Structures are given as C-alpha cells and as structure tokens.
C-alpha cells in the first residue's frame, strides 16, 4: 500500500481545500505528524505558539483556567478543523489550553518555519490569510452568539 505523503494529507485537509497545488508541498516542509492520547495537552495557555494543528482525527477541547473553579471549555473542534491561531499574532503565545478528548491525530505545522515561508512567498501568505480570516470571523461570530446567552430566560 502506498503511503500518503504529508503534502497529500495537507492538500486533502478541509482547511486547505482548493489550495494552489504547489503550496501543500511547500507547506509540508514545515509539517510533521503528531499524535495525542486522551487527556494529553496540545499546548498550554501562556506557552509560545510554536505550531498550529490540522486535526485529522479525534476531538480537542479548548479550555480556559479560572481560579477557584474547574477549567471551562469554550469550544471543541474535531476532524477537519484547525487548532491554533496565536502563531499568527505577536507575541505568538497561546491564550488557552488545548486538550485531546479522544485519541487525536494531527499535522503540526511549525510556526516559525511557516511564517518565514509566508514572508518569502507572499502569494502563499495571502492564500493562508484567506483561510485564516474566515475562520477567525466564524469564531468571533460564534463567540458573539455564546455571549448573547440565547437560551437564557427571556427578559
């Protein structure tokens, strides 16, 4: 059986759908396969945002710690989603924890490597931005809906 290369896996991921065929190979130079067991953390709040993750399998909980209470989950993501946007924004630190709820298989993309490639190849950088900005807009929109407390008691 022929093994799928990282470039093929990246090209097949929903986040990179319809990306210029030359880019997945370029991006794969920054990529590696990673695996997290149940309860493993992909990263912790405050750590340097050294990578972002293309989830291939499993679910990840995004959590915020609060003193005197359990951590709160504010979002779960799964297959086809991405984890990590902080690698794009200085000072490149995670602003929440990410924990594997199930066995998670993902592609980790090295942030410094990817930022360097985007600086060198602005076309790649723009293509990546066209994918990250809608994702950011969607998450902002979902956060608004969560803040509206739609299911609370009508006033």
């Amino acid at each position: 059986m022929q093994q799928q290369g990282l470039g093929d896996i990246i090209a097949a991921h929903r986040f990179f759908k319809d990306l210029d065929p030359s880019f997945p190979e370029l991006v794969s130079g920054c990529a590696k396969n990673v695996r997290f067991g149940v309860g493993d953390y992909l990263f912790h709040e405050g750590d340097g945002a050294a990578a972002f993750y293309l989830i291939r399998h499993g679910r990840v909980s995004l959590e915020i710690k609060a003193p005197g209470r359990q951590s709160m989950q504010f979002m779960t993501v799964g297959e086809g989603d991405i984890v990590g946007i902080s690698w794009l924004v200085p000072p490149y630190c995670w602003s929440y924890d990410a924990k594997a709820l199930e066995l998670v298989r993902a592609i980790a993309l090295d942030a410094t490597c990817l930022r360097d490639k985007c600086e060198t190849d602005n076309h790649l950088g723009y293509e990546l931005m066209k994918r990250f900005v809608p994702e950011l807009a969607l998450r902002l929109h979902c956060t608004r809906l969560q803040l509206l407390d739609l299911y609370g008691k009508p006033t």
Partner: protein
Amino acid sequence: MVPSLARVTTRHQELGDTWTLELEADDPDLLAFKPGQFNMLYAPGVGEAAISVSGDPSDAGRLIHTIRDVGKTSHALASLEPGMTAGVRGPFGTAWPVEAAEGTDVVVVSGGLGLAPLRPAIYHILAHRERYGRVAILAGARGVKGILFPNQLAAWRRHLDLQIEISVDHADTSWRGHVGVVTNLIPSADFDPADTTALVCGPEIMMRFTANALLDSGVAENTIHLSMERHMKCGLGHCGRCQYGPYLICRDGPVMSYDRLSRLLTVKDL
C-alpha cells in the same frame, strides 16, 4: 371557542424552570394534533398561553406539553399539580412537514427548549423510520444542566440509524460532548444538502443563524422550516395579536419555511 377541560395526570420537572404536564382530555379533537402544532392552555383565573405539544402524536390517550415558567400565566400552568384542571383550545397552527419530508434526509436542529415542539416530529419520523433517508438531530443548550429531555436523547442515541449530536455553549471539563454554538455541528452532520428537509426550533436569533449555516451547506431555502413564536391571543387568526409582517403566526405558522421568513427575520422590532 370555548376551552375544553383537561385534567393534569402527571407533572415532571425537566429543568429548573421547565415542567412537562401530561393531561387527560375527553375531547378527542384535542388529541388529534400534528407534530409542530400548539394548544392554547388556560390556567383557571389567570390567563391563556400558546404552548406547543411536545408528546407523541401516535399516543392517542395523552396530551403532553412542556412549559417554561417565565411569566404569570406560564407560572400558573407549570404549577398545575396532578388532579388539577386546565382549559385547552386547539390544536392550532401549521405542522412540521413530516409527510413532505418522506424520501429525503432530515436534519433537526434545536436550541434550548426548541426541542419540545420538535419532539413530536422526531417521534413521527422514528415511528416511520423507513420512509426517510439519513436523520440527524443536532441539539444546542446553554450548558449541560440546560439540556432538555437528556434521557430521551440518550435513548435516541442508541438508534444506529440516527445521528444525535449535542452541543452546549460552555461546560466544565467533565462534559465529554461538543462545546460551541449548535450551528458548528452542521458541517459535520451526515445529510445530503440537495435532498434534505431541515426542521429548526429555538430562539429566533439561533434559528436565523442556523438557517444561514444550512444555506451555506447547500440546503435550499424552501426546505428549511422554522417554528416561529409570538404572543398569541385568539389562536384563530382573528385578533391580529401575533401578526408578523403579512402573516399571523397562529394561523400561517408557527411552522413556516425559511423562504417566506428570510426577509422578515432581519427586520428590527417586527
């Protein structure tokens, strides 16, 4: 229209402020409801409110309503104890298009108490499961303690031919399900957008954004159905209390297709 009398046989607390009443009525017309329809329930001496039927349409002997205690009348209704009597007029309004949906995939999206008016449609679909394609039920709630009918959802989850996903807006780390708005569940739900009937019920903002997410996934406007809610008085389309643009929700609704509603839903204060 004079209310018929119905006797409360059981009262069950669903959530902190939400109760399900089972009523026994002599009037057979009251029991012949279609999924999605509502009754006007009268709390003696207090008032009348429109409440969707949340029971099984094939269960001929019982009338089931799930009521959120949010005001004087709903408080009086939700407080009715077994043996007490309520007035009932109905059933009124349009129904979920469960017959028109035969042969298609069905995606049911509920938010909070919106699962109550959808439950009769789910009962109907499960009772005639072979008539439908893939069926997905996507339920949203504020938190884990706000999930309506959790035991029912758990029982439905055992159906291998039914996709059930629950998402809460936030949760502590003991919750193993989805966290986030219910619309996030739509991209990974298993249905063919070109041949799908969507049934949506919840707060109006949630329904609006759910409809948008369904449209984004390729579902046609006229196959997305929402259950609208407005204060109702007569239930017969006479008084105009529930007017919504050119429609009277008690007569033209509560269940309406999104192509009739899309322009109205963005009108402020309508």
